[in-house]
């Protein structure tokens, strides 16, 4: 007769043998070379013509050509400046308006019908208008990036401010906390995790805004460069630039992720275990 303890150990052992024997991360590492191999085979065997998809070798060869080209660093700086300025502007305005509406029930009720409309507007339709207004310079790109990222930060700030527990608000009130104290010590900390989600999405849309604006009409920047290489049918160079944009995206993603872990440190445990979050 086995004790319960023994039976449990038995069952555990049984469970363990049925578990996956290879780690999923092995597969993660393997996917990249497989994709690369498929790309190499398809292009080198001319199944896919090189004008559509360049060979890996030609893309590798294009890297020093693109990066070493005259004024490349200027183009990079231009695009980075556009994205950072536009993101900062849009996020600031979004945060400020979110705070304004978040602190006044009356304003919130009044503007609720407009929120869906704001969400719906595809800001890219303004790209030609903005080019006409601001010209090919940097100002229009900053503006486009700002309006592209405004909504995400605005709506997350607004909805985040409503997240504080009503009981906690009441406790603060009964302790004679001022409105500003409740905001600073309770509501904003409660909203921060959500706001960071908005910032992350906003960073992506700011990048998109800047690039679209550069595509439509620009005198410098990586989007401009990409269009120029494409019209010269230099496909490998276009792919190098796409790679650079991917790096841009990853950098902005990682920066905000690290900032979130530093600033919203108390949520790190929840973030690591989404299955523990209450639904």
């Amino acid at each position, binding site marked *: 007769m086995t004790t319960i303890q023994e039976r449990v150990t038995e069952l555990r052992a049984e469970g363990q043998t049925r578990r996956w024997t290879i780690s999923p991360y092995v597969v993660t590492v393997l996917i990249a070379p497989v994709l690369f191999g498929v790309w190499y085979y398809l292009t080198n065997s001319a199944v896919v013509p090189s004008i559509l998809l360049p060979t890996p070798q030609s893309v590798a060869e294009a890297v020093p050509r693109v990066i070493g080209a005259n004024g490349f660093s200027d183009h990079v700086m231009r695009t980075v400046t556009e994205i950072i300025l536009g993101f900062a502007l849009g996020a600031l305005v979004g945060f400020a308006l979110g705070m304004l509406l978040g602190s006044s029930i009356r304003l919130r009720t*009044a503007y609720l019908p407009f929120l869906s409309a704001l969400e719906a507007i595809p800001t890219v339709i303004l790209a030609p208008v903005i080019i006409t207004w601001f010209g090919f310079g940097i100002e229009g790109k900053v503006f486009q990036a700002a309006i592209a990222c405004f909504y995400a930060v605005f709506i997350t700030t607004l909805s985040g401010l409503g997240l504080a527990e009503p009981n906690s608000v009441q406790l603060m009130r009964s302790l004679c906390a001022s409105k500003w104290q409740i905001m600073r010590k309770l509501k904003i900390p409660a909203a921060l995790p959500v706001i960071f989600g908005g910032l992350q999405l906003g960073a992506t849309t700011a990048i998109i805004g800047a690039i679209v604006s550069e595509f439509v009409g620009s005198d410098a920047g990586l989007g401009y460069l990409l269009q120029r290489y494409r019209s010269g049918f230099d496909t490998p160079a276009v792919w190098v630039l796409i790679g650079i944009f991917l790096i841009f995206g990853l950098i*902005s993603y990682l920066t905000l992720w690290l900032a979130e872990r530093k600033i919203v440190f108390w949520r790190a445990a929840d973030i690591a275990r989404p299955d523990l979050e209450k639904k």
Partner: protein
Amino acid sequence: MTSALRARPTKAGVAKAEGDGSSWWISVGTILIFAVAWEVGPRLLEDRTLFPTLSDTLSGLVRLVTAGYWWEDLTSTLLSVVLAWMIGCSVGLAAGIALGTVPFVRTAITPYAIAVQALPKIVLAPLFIGWLGFGPQSKIAIAVVICFFPVWIDTMVGLALPKANEFKLMQSLNATRAQTFWKLQLPSAVPLIMVGVKHAMLLAFTGVLVAEILSASAGGLGTLTKEFSSQLNMPLTFAVVVVVVVIAITLVSIMDVIERRVVFWSEESRSRKS
């Protein structure tokens, strides 16, 4: 691990005030101030070529609607958006279910999903135009690539939402994998999937517009905006922008109604109903 892939923010949490009827005048007042500012501002700037007034825009709208040539552009844009949205949602849903039901695959694929999420997919637009030409195919292809992503991620994350205990309960009741999927995972994923599906609609619209703006001969509302603005015909440009905004708001409202119907049980839609 999937937590690195976020669900998109919604306006779900925006608290509503109960029974405060005294705020309608703020809404109406804002609209009035906005209208007056739009009408007077350009006159003060004395630059009505670049900044058309409200009445200029409205007369432009009348000219546009009565002109006749724009119906083709309108239907072309709408058709492309709806087609791209349907394809994108199907692909996203299929990929999400395929990857979301197998934890092993989900963990393995997450770094790549993050990479795809980080890439501003709009940079692929010039490539697609190069591959597929200026026709509707390239428009639709770009929009599909842009809009399938949120559906995919939201499906994947949503299927993993049930807590460990809930899975254990299903197991202890001898549920098959299919039963666990249909009765536990899918119902808890649907609210999130609907958010993704709604965003996909907006992204598809954005994708189609960008493609139309970039390829001058594609036709469509994006092309119209670009042509009018390059002719410095700002009243007509603004008229097209107004049309685009109206379409976008209509699409989102339709999606809101569908969402409320489909996920009638979620608290979010219940609070929205009231």
